[in-house]
Every structure is written in structure tokens, then in C-alpha cells.
């Protein structure tokens, strides 16, 4: 008698389990299928551009000569955005999670989340119409006083529509992502570890250095990588803000271009091999993003032994 009840598989719970695990499996497979589909599309469509004779590609020197300046431009814009946004975002997140009085903290968190809800074309319009004009005196100052640095070499752009302006706009756009995620992670720091530090006589900042930041490190890296993903792929804001051109080292002259903006600006009027070239550029962006994410994973797992998960 007991044996039959034990081997019964008719319970409702079993059916629910099967449905759930089936649905979860299907969702997982769907993600892989979509990713594979996009990758396949990019590769197939890009092949004509990759195999075409060099003089038929835009610029007349082959695909590689076409793509590498805009790869560099993309990376420059994204790096500027992260260099500006990361410290600010971590600071704001720490303020919200550990310093601000409770009423102010929730209000501030709400405002930061609102920044993420603004459409990118609005950021682009703001950057082009307002920020570029307002910031050009600063560029003139940089050119005059720090022009010996190649990145601040003059003459500064009169319109202010430079890669640095684009990077600043991108920084504002990625700020809410990094801030929200970091804040969530900071709030999850075990009270036990915070109290351990405080009980040793740590000040609040020392407590944050000893327990909050080490705990949050993998989360901060993930947050920055998500921000980087957005900065690399952001199209509209860059297309509106940047007056693009050839690759230049100076961040305060007009010039440079990013992959996403290049595709957006040229795609509507492209045909034939030009379309393939742009899709190949998209493939390169896809690979860059993939590589960035893999490096982030590697950084996170490298310190697994000390992560606190064991």
C-alpha cells in the first residue's frame, strides 16, 4: 500500500513542475535562438562587404580601413561616458543607500530613475541645442591651457559638437542604469558585515570601504557593463550631437564617428554593397559588445574565492 502511494506520479504538483520547467526551458531556448538568428543574419548579410574588392567599399581602401576609425570613435565615446558616469553613479548610489535621510533618499532615487525614462532623442536634442553651445567656451579654455595634450589639441570646435560633448551626453544617459543597479546592490550588503566594521571602530566611509564596496564589487562591474552596452549602442543622441568626420585624437575638435550613428545616418539612403558594409559594421559592434560582456564575466569570476559566496 505504501509503495503505491510513494510511486504515484499523478499529483497536481508534479504537473505544475513539468509545465514550469517546460516553460522555463522554452524561454531559455528562445533567447538563444533569437541571439543566434541575429548573429546569423549579420554574418550572412555582411559577407558581400567583407569579400568585396577594396576599391568598391566606401573610402576605396577596403572594409578594414573603413571600419577601424569608427570602432575607435565608438570606444572613445563609450569610455568618456563611463569615466564620467561611473564615479558619479557610485557616489549618488552610496549617498542614497547609506548617507541620505530616508525621505530624501527615496525622492532622489525616483528622480534618478526618471532620467532613464527620457527618450534618447530628447537627450540628443538637448546635447545639440543646449549643451554643445554652453560648453564650447570650456573647450576654448582647454585648447588654450591644456592644448599640449593631444586629446585637447586646438583649435576647439566653434559649435561644440564634438566627441567629448557626445560622451558627456552619453554619461548622463548611462548614469541612471549604473546608479539604480549599484544602489540595489549596496542596499543588499549584509547588516552583519556592516556592523562588523562599525564595531571595530570604523567611520561610515571606512565601513563602506570594508564591507559595502567589496560586497558590491561584482554588482558594480555588471552595472558598469550594462551602462557600457548602452553607451556603445546609443545611436540617436550621438547622431544629433556629434558633427562627425575623420578620426582625430583631439576630443574638442569636430570629427570622429561611432558605429551606431554611422549606421543610422547612412542606412536610409544606402543600397547594394553599401547596405552590406553597414551591416558588417553592425556585426563588428555586436562582437565588441560580446567581448566586453565576456571580459566582465571573467573579471567577476576571477575573485570567486573571496566573493563571500562560499
Amino acid at each position, binding site marked *: 500500500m505504501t509503495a503505491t502511494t510513494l510511486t504515484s506520479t499523478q499529483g497536481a504538483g508534479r504537473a505544475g513542475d513539468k509545465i514550469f520547467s517546460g516553460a522555463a526551458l522554452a524561454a531559455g531556448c528562445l533567447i538563444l535562438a533569437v541571439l543566434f538568428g541575429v548573429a546569423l543574419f549579420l554574418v550572412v548579410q555582411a559577407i558581400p562587404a567583407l569579400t568585396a574588392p577594396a576599391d568598391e567599399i566606401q573610402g576605396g581602401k577596403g572594409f578594414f580601413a573603413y571600419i577601424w576609425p569608427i570602432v575607435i570613435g565608438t570606444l572613445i565615446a563609450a569610455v568618456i561616458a563611463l569615466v564620467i558616469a561611473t564615479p558619479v553613479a557610485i557616489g549618488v548610489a552610496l549617498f542614497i543607500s547609506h548617507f541620505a535621510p530616508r525621505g530624501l533618499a527615496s525622492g532622489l532615487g525616483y528622480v534618478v530613475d526618471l532620467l532613464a525614462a527620457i527618450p534618447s532623442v530628447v537627450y540628443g536634442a538637448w546635447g545639440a541645442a543646449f549643451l554643445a553651445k554652453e560648453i564650447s567656451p570650456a573647450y576654448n579654455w582647454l585648447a588654450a591651457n591644456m592644448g599640449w595634450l593631444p586629446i585637447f589639441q586646438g583649435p576647439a570646435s566653434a559649435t561644440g559638437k564634438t566627441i567629448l560633448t557626445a560622451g558627456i551626453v552619453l554619461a548622463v544617459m548611462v548614469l541612471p542604469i549604473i546608479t539604480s543597479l549599484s544602489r540595489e546592490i549596496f542596499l543588499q550588503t549584509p547588516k*552583519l558585515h556592516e*556592523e*562588523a*566594521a562599525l*564595531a*571595530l571602530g570604523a567611520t561610515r566611509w571606512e565601513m563602506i570601504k*570594508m564591507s559595502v564596496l*567589496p560586497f558590491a564589487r561584482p554588482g558594480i562591474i555588471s552595472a558598469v557593463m550594462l551602462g557600457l552596452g548602452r553607451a556603445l549602442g546609443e545611436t540617436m543622441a550621438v547622431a544629433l550631437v556629434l558633427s562627425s568626420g575623420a578620426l582625430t585624437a583631439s576630443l574638442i575638435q569636430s570629427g570622429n564617428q561611432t558605429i551606431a550613428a554611422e549606421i543610422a545616418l547612412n542606412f536610409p539612403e544606402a543600397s547594394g554593397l553599401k547596405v552590406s558594409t553597414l551591416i558588417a559594421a553592425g556585426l563588428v559592434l555586436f562582437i565588441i559588445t560580446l567581448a566586453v560582456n565576456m571580459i566582465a564575466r571573467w573579471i567577476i569570476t576571477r575573485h570567486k574565492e573571496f566573493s563571500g559566496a*562560499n
Partner: protein
Amino acid sequence: MSKRIDVKDLNVYYGDFLAVEDVTINIEAKSVTAFIGPSGCGKSTFLRTLNRMHEVLPGARVEGEVLLDGDNLYGHGVDPVTVRSQIGMVFQRPNPFPTMSIRDNVLAGVKLNNKKISKGEADVLVERSLKGANLWNEVKDRLEKPGSGLSGGQQQRLCIARAIAVEPQVILMDEPCSALDPISTLAIEDLINELKDQYTVVIVTHNMQQAARVSDRTAFFNIAGTGKPGKLIEVGDTHTIFSNPVQKATEDYVSGRFG
């Protein structure tokens, strides 16, 4: 390097809620004082007021005086950070810093406030503290490994080593053995016995046998009912509290009639 604590008329609040009412108690230097009592009677809350950890929680505050060798911990201009560096604490669950090695865990408190320490001095201090916590022989070959890889009892002794590395005046222990197995508990109790030669030790425990084994003096806390403040009922020599207490409630509690 151990000081006595005298508490005068201390009321402890969470916001408007009076959690512990009107405690007056003297804690002798170089002795072990145990706080016993039923759950929720405020003994842990009261312990946390002795190194100003209570006020870490939002809205928490106290009224009254806590004197460390005559200096009021709650006096005007007293920095809680300084108080905590002189009165160490060991928590209910072992909490070594998971991202730090065993060695860095021991040195964590010493390196605070931008203090610099040479590698030689650090080595000596790490060995002395770990020996003081009876942990040296178990970890001396893996000082660079993470502290979170140790067993629960070893982690708790690591936390004690971390606390004594800063050479505090007093060590507070909040149910330090409640998450540990009997063997590890025994190791901690032996350690408490050794610690009282140098330090003033205050321990909160749920385990009356533990209080009887390790402490010189025992304080019994009780609570009249849910929502009522906890009170100090009786304090005296451990032997007296367990064999011949003055209060009826104490006798009922230590003889196992409630709680």
C-alpha cells in the same frame, strides 16, 4: 588594559518605544559578566548600548549614563567611533569580512583611521591575536586564504582575534555560541576564561549552563509582557544567582520554570 563599566538609570528606545527601562548595573574589570533572560527581554539591546552600536539603527536612542572608568560614553562630544574602538564586539553569527584573507581580517581594525603598520609588526600582531583566540595552530599555514573558508567555530574565533587585535578595554559578546556546535562552543568558552585575565568580558547568552560555566557575575533581565519594556531584575555573583537568588522571578527562570 581593562576598564570597568558603570551604567546609571539607562533607558533604551527604538523611536518612541521604550525597549529597556531604567537599568543600573556595575560591570567589574577583568571579569566575565553574563546577561541571561527570556527572548525579547532586551539583553542584546542593552549590550549594544555599551559600545554605542544601538544607535546604528534608525531612530534608536538612549537616556542615561554609561561610564567607562568614569567617562560617560554618551557625554557631549564623545565620538561613537572612538567608543567602539575601545569596546570590541563579537556577534551572534560569525561575520569575518568575506573578501579579506584571514590575516587581513585580523588586521582590519588595526588599519582603521589611516594607521600605518609595518609588515613585521603586523606579523607579530596577527600571530599574537590568533594565538589569543586559540586559532593560530589551525590557520598558520593558510593566513592568505579567505576567512569565509573556515568552519563556523573557527570563524567566530577569527572574529574574536579581530576584536582583540585592537586591544580593546572591554569585549562584548552577543550570544557568540548560538550558531555553533557543542565542540566549537566549548572552544569559545575556554577562550572566554582566558580572555578575562586581560579584558572585561560581557556575554549575552540564552544558555543558562553556559552562563553558569563562564561567568563570575550574572544579570537576569525579564519582560512583563509583549510591548512592555525589558528590565534588569537582579544582578549578583553567578553562584548566588543560580543557587540562592533574591527575586522569585530569577529563581523561576534559573530553575527552568519558565522561559
